[in-house]
């Protein structure tokens, strides 16, 4: 299971989205990134949980949603935006 790091957040203003790290670094991201980040904000998640929300939002098949969710979590992990919760 994962959770979003507390010192990372996505702020939205008038259709613009900014990923902000506690270090003060910021990166503009698109609406889809912001929406999926929002889906992951509720609490701990894994690929299956995230995929279920994405499937509903984007009308994907189960397989497509799981693949996309996995890609997103790997991306977040590579950029240090999530932390793994021990079992």
């Amino acid at each position, binding site marked *: 299971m994962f959770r979003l790091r507390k*010192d990372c*957040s996505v*702020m*939205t*203003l*008038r259709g*613009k989205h*900014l990923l*902000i790290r*506690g270090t*003060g670094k*910021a990166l*503009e991201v698109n609406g889809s990134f912001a929406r999926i980040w929002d889906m992951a904000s509720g609490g701990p998640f894994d690929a299956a949980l995230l995929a279920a929300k994405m499937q509903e939002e984007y009308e994907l098949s189960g397989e497509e949603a799981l693949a996309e969710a996995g890609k997103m979590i790997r991306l977040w992990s590579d950029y240090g935006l999530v932390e793994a919760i021990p079992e």
Partner: protein
Amino acid sequence: MSPLEQHFLTLVRSGLREQPAEDFPQVLPLPHWQAILDMARKQTVTGLVFRGVGLLPDEVQVPDNIMFSLMMEAERIKRQSALVSETAAEVCARFEAAGLHPVVLKGPEVARLYPDPSLRESGDIDLYYSPEEFEKACAVVRAEGRSLAPASDGSVHYDWNGIDIDQHRQYFDLHTRKGLPPVPSAEATLLMLSVHILKHCMGAGIGLRQFCDMAAAYRSVPYDREKLLACYKATGTAHWNRLLAAFLERYLGAATPYSAGDPVSPVTGAGEPLPDPAGLLAFVLAGGNFGHHDAAREKVLKEGGLRRKTDTLLRFLRRLPFSLRYAPREWLGELAALARGNLRPE
């Protein structure tokens, strides 16, 4: 009021009321946007301006770098607000475990009255204890290994998780003891917020944030209008509260106990025209947050010591016309307290 100041206040009003801004120009030059952002920072209302910008109609063009700056600052404000709220809860739990009853004043408590509490800037935490509990609370703080620093008004302050805690032995920043409403009560909250603004208006200054607090409180705190107005009269703060109401109504679009349309009361004077708040606005805009952005004051604050204390006293004396007009009773009490507290060697 300049057009820029009008645009700034329009955004603050919009953010405070969660209503789209009325009459905002579709295009503003970048330097004007930057000036609005500077005003927001100086007045510690950036969170409200962030919300106000978010509510602007789609046709209004807001430069990207202004939006990015607002998002960065709103994120910082939210993070700080969360830390202050968590610390307030932790501190209160510690004192309650010791059998004490801390009351959180201003800050995190008044933030709850905002449409989005996390966007109200909070720096420190103010706690009140009854006279019976104040010293016991100090003992708890010392037992934690924290050092207490006394302030000139009899309060003490200390650090907790990097947050400054101000511990007060008085709920109301008033010298008069007559006509005070019971604590806790809606009227007590409103009087406490009002006189806090008054005291700083009598001295070095105060920013727009505290006026926004008052506007939010008038909207959300369920008070008894007749009791409140009678309390203002009994405490000698009626003239001040009428000026404050004029400010809130004109610049923040707030409803106040003096709002037009009410019948004139021979006791409270409600229903009469309110005084002109333009001078008060000029004072607030010039000094910023607690008057710290007045250029001369900024310099003195860096120097500290006797120079700072003397400057505080001089500013207090310079505000004499305002203080004698709106709170003469308090002015005399404040002068005595200031002389005792600020001219004592450090």
